[in-house]
């Protein structure tokens, strides 16, 4: 099945203005949760995000468990545990991809052949994106984050996220149409 839609804009959908208010509310709610609440609520969704980033379920769970362990240790000092969780997961996924890339260069593999996502043409296309672009796409279009939030997680400016998403979409389209 083709994942190409009708109009190809390459521009992320606009984010409504009331999101900042919603973000403040979410943060206030989050401060009153416990670690186990966060674990029950966010464990599976974060494994799915990590799965889209690293492409294997086992490594995705490993990354997310690692992130939760670090959060448990810092729990009392975290203002925004969920934001920290996302940042840890994305950073650890980058470590996994970096290690895998080094191994694959040795094995002269052209692209990420370890991914369980390959059965799908979008999975194939995601695998050729750089780790940061891949993270930007997954956080925006799967996790539904705003560009500002993605910028914080990836440690880049908001304008950079916009341009990363634009280029990633163009690259995905190119790979899928090839």
């Amino acid at each position, binding site marked *: 099945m083709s*994942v*190409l*839609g*009708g*109009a*190809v*804009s*390459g*521009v*992320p*959908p606009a984010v409504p203005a009331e999101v900042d208010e919603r973000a403040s509310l979410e943060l206030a709610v989050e401060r009153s949760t416990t670690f*186990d609440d966060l*674990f*029950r609520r966010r*464990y*599976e969704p974060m*494994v*799915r*995000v990590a*799965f*889209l980033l690293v492409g*294997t*379920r*086992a490594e*995705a*769970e490993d990354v*997310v*468990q*690692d992130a*939760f*362990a*670090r959060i*448990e*240790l810092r729990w009392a000092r975290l203002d925004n545990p969920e934001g920290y969780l996302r940042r*840890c997961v994305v*950073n*650890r996924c*980058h*470590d996994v991809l*970096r*290690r895998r*890339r*080094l*191994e694959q*260069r*040795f*094995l002269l593999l052209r692209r990420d*052949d*370890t991914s369980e*996502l390959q059965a*799908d043409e*979008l*999975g194939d296309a995601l695998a050729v994106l750089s780790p940061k672009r891949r993270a930007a*796409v*997954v956080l925006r*279009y*799967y996790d539904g984050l705003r560009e500002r939030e993605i910028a914080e997680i990836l440690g880049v400016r908001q304008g950079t996220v916009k341009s990363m998403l634009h280029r990633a*979409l163009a690259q*995905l389209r190119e790979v*899928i149409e090839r």
Partner: protein
Amino acid sequence: MNPLVLDDHLHRLADDVAAPPSSGARQAIGRRARVLRRRRQVRNAVGGGLVVVAAVATGLALRGGPAADVEMDPAGPGTTDTGALPAVTLDPDEWTVIGAGEYPEATEESASYELWAEGSFQVFRADDEPAGPTAAVSHKVAFDPVVAEPLDREVDVDGDTGFLRQTADESFTLRWNPDHGDTQAQLTSWGLTQDQVVEFAGGLQPREDGISAPATDATQLGFVATQLPVPLDEVLVVTPVGQPQPGVRQVMLRSGKRTAEVMIDRGGEEAYELKRAALLATAGDVRVTRVLDRLALLIEQPDGQWSLIWRHTPSTMITVTLAGVERADIDDIAGRVRELTTDQWSDLVGDHS
């Protein structure tokens, strides 16, 4: 690509992944957190700059001998340790600093090495051969059986099924469940053949048989090596402790098309061995050299980069990653590493952060 279609498709790819927040997952997180907490407590237990030997002691001597038989400190750190992070850069006549800074915590990359050693971590290396054959073995309690990953080959590890992968010309990774217990072992090697790796792993006798998850304080992880395809000694792992100081200092430099990243990390023998094992897992050529009167390893990476790594003091290590350089130039570059005073470092950060 239409973003709405992309959104829908990503959900179809990922929403089938079932990973409920089970008690098994919660326990695994708790175990990892305990390991991290223990490491932090050890680091903070003694005042600035002191070094204690936290021996990975039981079963230290492969040949049943005392600790004195064990290889100490193969890369020769300096003897002074003030507790503060050192600062180094490359000769300013040739290299231009393009960024410098310091950060309160270890990098995620360093942290991932730390987790690699969740459970026990042992290193076996040929005596007096810092660049010689090496096997790094981690052993942890885990409910899950080891499963094959893409590119793995199935091998027999003394009756247990192991999964072996070649990660570089002379590097292998082998994972298995020793003695059918609730544990997982991972061996990464450099300079050993595939047969030697499997033989060595087959001779690793767990210090405790039939370990059940979850682990207790009395659980004894780790191995005693009984089969040595080449002469290997267990390296005594020395863990430095001290007051928390800035965790990482980093300098980025450029010289024409050549770039260098200097990473100064807090971390003693264990952190050094973990990082070194990670670099060796994808290594090409490996040589011994000297930097600032200390022994250093020069490790070729498959992406054309070179890593120069050494223990600068008992509680700090330095890695210089070089890109765009010729092999023939590296000894010269190693000779251009310069140590900075505290004031010089402050000025450098002030100018480039």
